[in-house]
C-alpha cells in the first residue's frame, strides 16, 4: 500500500516538475526590433530601399556630411582653422596622422557606402526583375560604389585600398589586405562606365530628383581620368556633358549655394540634405530612428553671430583673392551694387568680408554679422544659411552639397584643352561664361589699355580702350622696388600690397612666351615697363608689347629697355598663363569649399602643393579695421604681420602628405592589413 502511494506521489511530483517543459516554442523569440536580413531582399521595393540607404551614406560626416566639408579645405590653400580647433589645426599644419578625425571618418563612411551598395549588388540576382529595372538599380548602385571608391582612391595610401565587391557574410571575408591602386582604379572605372552606359540623362518623375544620372557618371569619369593626367579621355567625357545641352550655368551664382535653388540647371550631382524631412535628435548622426537628414556644416562654419563655431574660415590667400575679384561694372548683374568697397557678386555669396556693403550676414550688415577679430579676416557664406537670423539651434542645415556642377566641368574641360594644346579661344570663352555670371571682368584675348595716373588719387589706373572701363592698378614691391601692375588676374604670387621676394615668383614665369606676358610693371609712375620673365624683372628690363620684336641696340646680349609713357598696349594669353589663371584665380574663386576635397585634388594633380604652400608661407598680412591687407611696411609699420601655412610649407612632402594615412581604427581592427 505504502509502495503504491509512493508511486502515485512520484508521478505527481514528476508531473509537476515537467508541467511546462513541453512548451517547445518557449525558446523561439521573434526579434521585435528589426527585420531579419535573411528574409529581406526579395523584391524590387526592397532593393530600392537598399539603394536609398546607399544614397544615405553620401550624407555621412566623412563623405559629404558636415565634418568632411568643414575640415578638408584647411589642408589646401583655401581654408584656415580657427585658433582652437585642434582637428583643423592638425590638417592645416600637416601634423595630421592616422588618428585625425577626418582621416578615420572619411575611410569609415566610404566603406559604409560600399557595404550598402554591395548589399544591393549582391542580392539583385535573387530578385526577379525586368532588364530595364535591373540595369537601372545596378547602375545607380555601381555609380555610388564607384563614387565611394573614388573618395578612397583619391584619399588614401596612394590609391591602394581594400576592395570589397560583395557584401561579406562570414568573418574571414572581413579581413582583407589592400589591393594595388591599379585594381582600385579599374574597379572605379568599370562601375562608372556601367553607370555611364545605363543611367538616364534625366528622370521623368520629380520624385526621382537627386538620383544619379548619366551626367553625374560622365563627370565622375572625367574627374577620375583627369586626375590620372589622362587629359585626352577626360576631355571627351567633359565635352559630352557640355555638348549634351542638359546643363547650363545659372544666372545667379548664389543659386548654387542656397537651399531654394537646389537641383538647378547647373547641378550635375548633389547630395541632398533636408532640415524638415526628419529633424533628428542626434545631430551628427544621419541614420537610425533619431538620425537627421541634415548636415552639420553650416553650424560648424558660421560666425558667432550666426550661432556657429567658425571652425574653418577662408584662408588669407583666399580672402585676398575675393577682395580682388574685380567687378565688371558694365555687367547688369552689378547694376545695383554700390558702396565703398565694391565686391563682386561671387565674393558676396561665397565669403563674408567686413567692408562688403552690398550684402548681409545673418540679417545684419556684413561687418556686424561676424566678429572679424582674433585674426579672422573672412567667414564662409557658401552653403551657409546666412539670410536667416542665425543658423539652426540644432546642429543642422538643409542645404544640399553640390558635388559636381557645370562650372567645375567647364574649368576641368578647359584644363584638358590647355594641357592638350587646344584652342585658347574656347577656353577663354568658357572662363568668361563663368566670370560673366560672377559679375567680374572678363578675360580678353587682346586687351588694349591706357595707363593713367589719376592726379587726385594715388592709385594708378588703366583704361580699357575698348570698353572705357577703368581698372585700378595694384601696388606691389619686388626687391624693394615699388611696382604697379594691372591685370585681369591679380598677380597671384605677389598680390597687391605685399612685399615679395623675387624668388617667390613661379618658375613658369620664365616660360612665358615672348610678347605674351600680361605682367605690366610700372616704375616711378611715369614709365611703364613690361616684363616677360623673372629675369626681366631682375634686370629691370621691360618689354614693349606693342612691338613684339625685341631689339638689342647695344649688342650686349639683352634686349633693350623700352620706356613708355601712358601709351597704348595690348595683352594676350598663352596656354600657360591661362592655366595659371585657372589654377590660381578661377578655380579657387569659383569652387572653394565645394565638393569633396576638390582643391586638394586640384593641387595634387597639378603637383603644385609645395610651391603654393611655400608661396603662401612667404606672405605677410595685417588686419586693420576688420579688413585684411597685404602687409606693407610703409603703411602698416604699427601692426604685427600675420602669416599662414608656415608649418605646412616646412614639412610637406608629396609622399607623406598627398594621401591620408590608413586610419589606425582600420589597422587596429584589421590585423591582416599589414601582413
Amino acid at each position, binding site marked *: 500500500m505504502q509502495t503504491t502511494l509512493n508511486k502515485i506521489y512520484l508521478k505527481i511530483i514528476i508531473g509537476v516538475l515537467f508541467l511546462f517543459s513541453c512548451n517547445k516554442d518557449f525558446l523561439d523569440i521573434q526579434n521585435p526590433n528589426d527585420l531579419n536580413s535573411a528574409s529581406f531582399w526579395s523584391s524590387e521595393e526592397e532593393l530600392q530601399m537598399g539603394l536609398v540607404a546607399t544614397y544615405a551614406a553620401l550624407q555621412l560626416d566623412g563623405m559629404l556630411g558636415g565634418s568632411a566639408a568643414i575640415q578638408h579645405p584647411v589642408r589646401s590653400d583655401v581654408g584656415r582653422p580657427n585658433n582652437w580647433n585642434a582637428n583643423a589645426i592638425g590638417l592645416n599644419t600637416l601634423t595630421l*596622422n592616422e588618428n585625425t578625425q577626418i582621416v578615420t571618418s572619411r575611410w569609415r563612411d566610404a566603406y*559604409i557606402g560600399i557595404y550598402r551598395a554591395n548589399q544591393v549588388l549582391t542580392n539583385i540576382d535573387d530578385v526577379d526583375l525586368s532588364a530595364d529595372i535591373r540595369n537601372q538599380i545596378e547602375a545607380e548602385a555601381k555609380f555610388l560604389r564607384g563614387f565611394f571608391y573614388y573618395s578612397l582612391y583619391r584619399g588614401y595610401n596612394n590609391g591602394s585600398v581594400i576592395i570589397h565587391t560583395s557584401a561579406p557574410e562570414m568573418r574571414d571575408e572581413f579581413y582583407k589586405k589592400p589591393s594595388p591602386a591599379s585594381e582600385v582604379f579599374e574597379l572605379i572605372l568599370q562601375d562608372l562606365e556601367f553607370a555611364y552606359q545605363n543611367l538616364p540623362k534625366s528622370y521623368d518623375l520629380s520624385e526621382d530628383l*537627386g538620383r544619379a544620372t548619366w551626367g553625374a557618371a560622365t563627370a565622375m569619369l572625367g574627374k577620375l581620368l583627369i586626375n590620372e593626367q589622362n587629359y585626352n579621355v577626360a576631355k571627351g567625357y567633359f565635352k559630352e556633358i557640355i555638348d549634351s545641352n542638359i546643363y547650363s550655368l545659372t544666372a545667379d551664382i548664389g543659386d548654387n549655394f542656397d537651399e531654394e535653388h537646389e537641383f538647378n540647371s547647373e547641378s550635375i550631382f548633389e547630395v541632398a540634405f533636408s532640415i524638415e524631412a526628419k529633424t533628428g535628435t542626434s545631430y551628427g548622426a544621419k541614420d537610425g530612428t533619431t538620425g537627421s537628414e541634415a548636415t552639420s556644416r553650416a553650424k560648424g562654419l558660421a560666425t*558667432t553671430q550666426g550661432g556657429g563655431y567658425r571652425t574653418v574660415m577662408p584662408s588669407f590667400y583666399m580672402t585676398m583673392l575675393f577682395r580682388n575679384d574685380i567687378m565688371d561694372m558694365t555687367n547688369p548683374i552689378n547694376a545695383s551694387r554700390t558702396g565703398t568697397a565694391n565686391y563682386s557678386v561671387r565674393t558676396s555669396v561665397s565669403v563674408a568680408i567686413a567692408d562688403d556693403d552690398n550684402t548681409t550676414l545673418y540679417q545684419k550688415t556684413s561687418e556686424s554679422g561676424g566678429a572679424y577679430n582674433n585674426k579672422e579676416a573672412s567667414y564662409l557664406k557658401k552653403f551657409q544659411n546666412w539670410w536667416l537670423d542665425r543658423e539652426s539651434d540644432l546642429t543642422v542645415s538643409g542645404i544640399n552639397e553640390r558635388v559636381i556642377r557645370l562650372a567645375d566641368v567647364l574649368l576641368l574641360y578647359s584644363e584638358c584643352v590647355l594641357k592638350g594644346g587646344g584652342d585658347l579661344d574656347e577656353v577663354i570663352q568658357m572662363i568668361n561664361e563663368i566670370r560673366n555670371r560672377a559679375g567680374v571682368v572678363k578675360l580678353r584675348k587682346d586687351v588694349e589699355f591706357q595707363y593713367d595716373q589719376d592726379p587726385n588719387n594715388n592709385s594708378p589706373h588703366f583704361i580699357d580702350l575698348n570698353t572705357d572701363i577703368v581698372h585700378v592698378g595694384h601696388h606691389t614691391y619686388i626687391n624693394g622696388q615699388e611696382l604697379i601692375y594691372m591685370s585681369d588676374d591679380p598677380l597671384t604670387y605677389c598680390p597687391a600690397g605685399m612685399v615679395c621676394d623675387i624668388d617667390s615668383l613661379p618658375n613658369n614665369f620664365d616660360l612665358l612666351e615672348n610678347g605674351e606676358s600680361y605682367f605690366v610693371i610700372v616704375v616711378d609712375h611715369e614709365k611703364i615697363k613690361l616684363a616677360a620673365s623673372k629675369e626681366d624683372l631682375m634686370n629691370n628690363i621691360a618689354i614693349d608689347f606693342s612691338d613684339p620684336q625685341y631689339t638689342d641696340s647695344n649688342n650686349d646680349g639683352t634686349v633693350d629697355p623700352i620706356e613708355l609713357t601712358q601709351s597704348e598696349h595690348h595683352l594676350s594669353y598663352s596656354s600657360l598663363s591661362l592655366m595659371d589663371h585657372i589654377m590660381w584665380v578661377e578655380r579657387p574663386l569659383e569652387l572653394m569649399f565645394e565638393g569633396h576635397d576638390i582643391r586638394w585634388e586640384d593641387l595634387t594633380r597639378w603637383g603644385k602643393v609645395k610651391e603654393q604652400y611655400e608661396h603662401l608661407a612667404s606672405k605677410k598680412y595685417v588686419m586693420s579695421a576688420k579688413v585684411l591687407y597685404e602687409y606693407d611696411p610703409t603703411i602698416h609699420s604699427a601692426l604685427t604681420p600675420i602669416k599662414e601655412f608656415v608649418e605646412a610649407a616646412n614639412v610637406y612632402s608629396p609622399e607623406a602628405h598627398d594621401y591620408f594615412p590608413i586610419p589606425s581604427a582600420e589597422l587596429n581592427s584589421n*590585423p591582416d592589413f*599589414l601582413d
Partner: protein
Amino acid sequence: MLERIKIIRFLHIFNLIIFTFLFGFLTRAQNLTVKGSVISAEDGQPIPGVNIRIDGTEMGSSTNFDGFYSIEVPENSNLIFSYIGMQETKITVTQSRHNVVMEVNTTGLDEVVVVGYGTMKKRELTGAVSSVKSDEITKTATSDFASSIQGRIAGVSVRQGNSAPGENAQITIRGITSFQEGGSGPLYVVDGVTYIENPNITPQEIESIEVLKDGASASIYGSRASGGVILITTKRGKEGEMKVDLESYYGLQNISSRIPLANTKESLYINDIQYRYQQTNAFDPLEFNKDGLLYNTDWMGDLQVDWAPIQNHSIGVSGGKSGLTYNVTGTYFNQEGSLYNSDYEKFSLRSNTYFKNGRFSAQANVSLNISDQKKEPYALIYDAIRLQPYRKPIDASSDSFVFGGTSPENISNFAGKLKQENDTKINSFNGNVRLNYKVIKGVIIAANLGKSHYSKKDRFFNPSYLIYNEIGEINNTASNYNAQLRLGDGINSRSIAEFTMNYERIFKKHNLKVLIGNTYEKSSYEFYRAGADNISSNITPVLGNGEPVPSSHFINKTNSISYLGRINYNYNWKYILSVVVRRDGSSNFSANNRYGVFPSISGAWTISNESFFKSLKDKISLAKIRIGYGTTGSDRIPPYAFSPVVISNVDYPLGGGSNLVSGMTQPGYADPNLKWESNVSKNFGIDLDFKRGKAELNIDIYEQDKKDMLLAIAPPISAGSTPISSKNYDRYLTNVGNLQNKGIEIAGHLNQSFGDVNAKFGATFTKNQNTVISLSREGEFILDGYPNILRMSQTEPVAVLEAGLPVGAFKVYETTGTIKTDEELTDYQQMVPTAQKGDLRYVDIDGDGELTIDDKTYKGSYQPDFEYGFTLDIDYRAFDLSVQLYGIEGSTIYNGAKQYAYSMKRHRDLVYSWSDVNPTSNIPTPRSNIEHPNVQTSTDYFLEDGSYLRVRNIIVGYSLSEVVVEKIGIDKLRFYVSAQNPITFTNYTGFDPEVGDSNPFNGGLDRGNYPISATYLTGLSISF
C-alpha cells in the same frame, strides 16, 4: 563654513547624548553571591578556565578545574561566560545557583551555508564557498553591498571604478572571466531568485552573503554561473518577542585625490612654450582674456563639494510565533555627491514572512526600492581639467551670463552644462513566494515563483540660457535657445518559476541527498525614449510645451529553460561526494546551438574525522581537503544576436525639398554559429580549523579554462558596418577565443584574547593569473579600451586581447623620453619626418625603420599580481575597534585624466616640458595638434604603477552596558565613529588607483571617473 557648523552642531548633540546615557542612569544595587558549574553541551564534561564577567563592569571570575565558579554580583545583573571554542553565554542572575551549559562554537563546522537550491552544513561542502555575515557587511557606509565586501573574501575582487553616489562596484570572482562588458560579473541569487546584474539590495536587509567560487559549486546554476555565484540571504524573523533594531549614521565626505593642473601663471608659461615653435595660428590667451591675470580659478575645486553629507537610517522589526515569523526592514539612504550636482537617495523596504504548518511551509519575500540618482553633468571632470584658470569663475544659478573675450563658447557651453538636470529614478519590486510540501518522509517538493520588475526612468533637461559679451551683445553660438527635454524609460521584467524535489535519507553512516528540478525564466527589457525641443520656458519642462523629437523604442526578450540534478553523498562525514548536472536552453542562441549541458563532480575528505587523526584533534579540530571539477557556461549576450538584421530609418531625401524616401540596410554582421561559452574549472582546497575556531585557514588552488568566449568585436571598419548610437550594429558577437585563470586564494583568521581584550585578526590573499590562451583567428589581436570618454574617435585604444597576454593588457608604443638634440632629431626624422625637438621618441620595436602597429608592445596589465585584505576587530569591555585594510600590488593603470590634461595643455608637468631653456626634460613639449604623438593615447607615457594599500575603514564603537540600557528599556545601544578610505598609500599620480569597469578592456583605465571620497561618520544602533 556651513558644513563646519553642521559638524560642530552634530558633535555637540552627540556628546550630550553620551553624557546623558553614561551618567544619568548609573545607580548601584545590592550584592549577591552566585555559584554553579559550567559544562559543555557536546560531551557534558565540565569546562575549566571559563571566563566570567559581570556585564557592564570590569569585575569577573573564572571556573576552577572542575568547572565550578563563585562570584559576588549585584542583583539583576547579567553574567557573561566566555571560552574559546564555545559560544558566549549570558545569564540574568535570578537566584543564587546557576548551572550553565555552553554550546560548542559552530563557526567552523555546523554553520549552515546557503548553496544553490538549498542549504548545507559547512562540513558537507566539497567546493569553494565563502560567506560573509551581516555585521561585517554593515560596517561600511554605503548603499551598495558590493563595496562592503571588498577585501573580505579571498578570490573575490571588488573594484569601485566610479564612486558617484548610487553607483555599484564591480565584483569579479577568480579573475576576469569574460571578454564582454559586464560578462565577468557573477550571478546573484537573492533568496533563490536569480539576477544577472547587481540586484542592488540594501546592505541592512542582508543576513548573509555566500559566494560560490569554483565551478563545481556554481555549476548548479549552469549557464549563468561562469563568473561565480553570489547568494544573498535576506534577514528573516525568529520566533519570540518582537524585536526592533534601529541603525543610523551620518557622515561627511571629501575628495582627497587630485590631479596636478597648472594655475594661471603656469598656464601662460605652457602657452608660451607651445607657441615658441609655431609660427602660424599662435594664440595668446591674454589677447582674448584681457582680465585673465585677475583670475586663478581652481575649476576642479569649484566643481567639488567639500564635506558632502551622507546618511543612512534603517529600522528593522522582526519576531513571530506559532509557526509564523516576520522581518520588515525599512532603510533610507541619502548621499550628497562630492562632485557638483550629484546625489543619491534611496528608500527601501523589505518584508520577509515565513509560515510553517505541518507538512507545508511557505515563505513570501517582498522588496521595494525607490531611488533617485542625480548625476553630475556628463564628463564634468574633463571640463574641470580642460578649463583654463585665467577664466572667470561661474555662478551657475543665473539664466544669463556675461563672458568676455573672443572665444567664449568653451566656457559658456560649460556654464550651460552646469544648469543641466540629469537624473535617474529607479523603482523596483522584487518578490517571490516559495512553497514547500513534505510529500513523505525525506521527500520535499518545492516551487519557487518569483517576479521582479525594475523601472528606470531617466530625465535630461538642458535649459535655455543666454550669453552676452561684455558690451551686451548676444552670443548666438554660446547661447542656448533650445531648451531640450529627454525622457527615457527602461522596464526590466523577469519571472522565474522553479520546481524542485529534494530527497534526503540517512541510513547508518550513509548520508544521501538528491535534488532534481527544472526552472523557467522569462526576462524582457523594454526601453523607450521621447523628447521635446524648444520647450517654451525653463520653468515648464514637460513634453507638451515643446516640439516633439523622434522617439525610439526597443524590446529585448530572453527565455530560458533548465533541468538540474544534484546528488550529495557522504559516508560518516568523512568521504563526501557531490555530483551535479544541469542542462540549459537559452533563446539567445539559434535552434542548433540552444542547449548546453554543464556537469560537475566534487569530493571532500575530512581527514580530521579519521581515527588516526584523534591525537591531533585537540589542536586541529578540522582538517579537510576538497577537490572539484565543474563546468559552467555563459549565455550572457543580448538577444537576437545570431541573425543579421535590416534596419529602417536609413533614409534619403530624394525628390527635392522635404520629400523623404525610406531606406533600409543591413547595418552589420551576425555570426550564425554563435554558441555557448563554456568554462571548465578545477579546484583543490584545504580547510583547517584550529582549537575549535580559535584560528581558521582556508587555501584554494584553482584553474579555470574558458572556451569559446563570447565577445562583440568590431570588424575592420572597411567592412562597412553602420555605427548607430546605443545600438551595437558595428560589432558582432562571436566566440573569439579561450581564456585561462589560475590562482591561489588564502583566507585565515585568528581569535586571541589578552585579558579583557578580545582580538580577531583576519586576512585574505588572492593571486590570480589570467591569460588569453588563443583567439579563434590565429595571430589575431583585438584592440579596445579608450582612455578618455571624450574624443574616442580621435584616440587610439590601448588594451588588447592577444594570445599569451592577460585580458586588457596594455599594448602601446614604447617611448624613451624626448628628442633633445639636433643629431637625435635628424636621426629620428628618418622615421617621423615631421618630428621636432621636444617630441616624444617612439621606439621602433621591430626595427624596420617605420612606426607601425607592429611596434606596439605589451606594457603590463591592470590585473594585479595579488590583492590582499586585513581586518582587525578588537573588543575591550564596552569599546570595539575595527580596522580594515585593502591593497593590490603589481597593477598597471593608464592615467587617462593625465593624458587628457596633457592634450589640453593643462597638466602642471608641462611647465617642465622640453624647451630650449629646459633641454634635458623628458616631458614632451605641448603642441597644438590634439592628435600629436606627444599626447596620443597609445604610448606607455601615461602608464603608471597602480599598486596601493588603502585603509578602508577604521571604526571605534562604544556600547553602553546592559545595566544602563535596561534602565531606559532597551536591549542594546552602541555609538561609533568611523573613517572610511581615510588614507591610501600609492605612487599613483592620478585621482585614485582604484579603477575598474565592467568592460574588461577598460578595467585599467582611469577615465576621469568620479573620484573616491574619504568619509568620516558617526552612528548609533539601538535594539529593543
